[in-house]
């Protein structure tokens, strides 16, 4: 299970990386925005994408849309972990095909629950 973590703040990437490791996912890579993440997703074989929304360069929302529009990536499970809390945004993310939405600040239990739910649905 190879996971890409996309967030412009290294602190948040590190927190998510640690939480994922506690959940048994040790194979993780990091990117600091959509522009960096997309080529990584296209060339590396990732099984799961965890992304923030608000980032300089390409936002997580645009990254989600780019992933869904890419023939090879369109089925990649995407979990959004973000401080964006407007109802319109959550609806937009759902419509764009997000698999899970975690709003910051979040707990380890919430992240675990959402990830497990996503994998349940896939398997």
């Amino acid at each position, binding site marked *: 299970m190879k996971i890409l973590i996309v967030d412009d703040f290294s602190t948040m990437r590190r927190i998510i990386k640690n939480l994922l490791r506690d959940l048994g996912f040790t194979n993780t890579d990091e990117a600091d925005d959509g522009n960096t993440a997309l080529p990584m997703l296209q060339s590396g074989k990732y099984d799961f994408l965890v992304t923030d929304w608000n980032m300089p360069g390409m936002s997580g929302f645009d990254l989600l849309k780019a992933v869904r529009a890419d023939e090879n990536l369109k089925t990649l499970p995407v979990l959004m972990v973000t401080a964006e*809390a407007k109802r319109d945004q959550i*609806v937009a993310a759902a419509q764009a095909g997000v698999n899970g939405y975690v709003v910051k600040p979040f707990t380890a239990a919430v992240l675990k629950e959402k990830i497990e739910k996503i994998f349940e649905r896939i398997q």
Partner: protein
Amino acid sequence: MSDSNNKNPQGLDPEVTEKLRVQANELVEHVNAGDYARAMTLISDLSEVRDQSLYREVGRLTRSLHEAIRNFQIDPRNAEQQEALSKMTDASDRLEYVVQMTGQAANRTMDLVEETMPKAHVIRDEAAALRDEWQRLRRREMQPAEFRDLYGRIDRFFVTLTEDADTIYNNLSEILLAQDFQDLTGQVIQKVTNLVKEVEEHLLSLVVMASHVDQLTGTVHEIESAEVSAEQGVGPQMNAEEREDVVSGQDDVDDLLSSLGF
């Protein structure tokens, strides 16, 4: 503006409005009496009154504007003002410092947590293994040779446990100390907040002045309402509980998504 109380809503002096009233009445009288030459002179007088009041108003506004700009302290002509200017430009440096400090604290904390967590794991695993052995001993299932091994293992465990407990304690106390940024960043943010408030007040008086000029000259601005797109992200929302368009936590998100069939 201190003298704004003496003015009517259009920002004109009572003296000027009185003059206008008197001359307008005179104008009507002259027109009715057929004295057009006198009426024309009056019209020209009237426009002169308008121009004069405009000039006076513009002069006054220019002085206020100058005052307001000076309050902004963005004119570094002497040492005092240069210091004030640096107060303005300093604000972004200060906020950068806050980002740095919080980042450092977060990383320092995570370093220590990442160092401490495996130790807790090792202690737990070794304690569990020893407990199993201990149970075997109590059930008298242990050979003498095994017991001697256990004897040494318990001894070593006590030594590492003491050392690791010290390390864990020290790491926790360092984590505690790493939170001292809150005091420093709190002070910095308060300073910047005060500066922003100050700037806001000065800006507000500038806006009031500008609207004054607009009223005098009859300028109407077409203000385009710029709808901010949420697609690029807008960041954390304040007072989420009081707002309808914002979720106030993960439960709200889950409810919303399940209402969409998730």
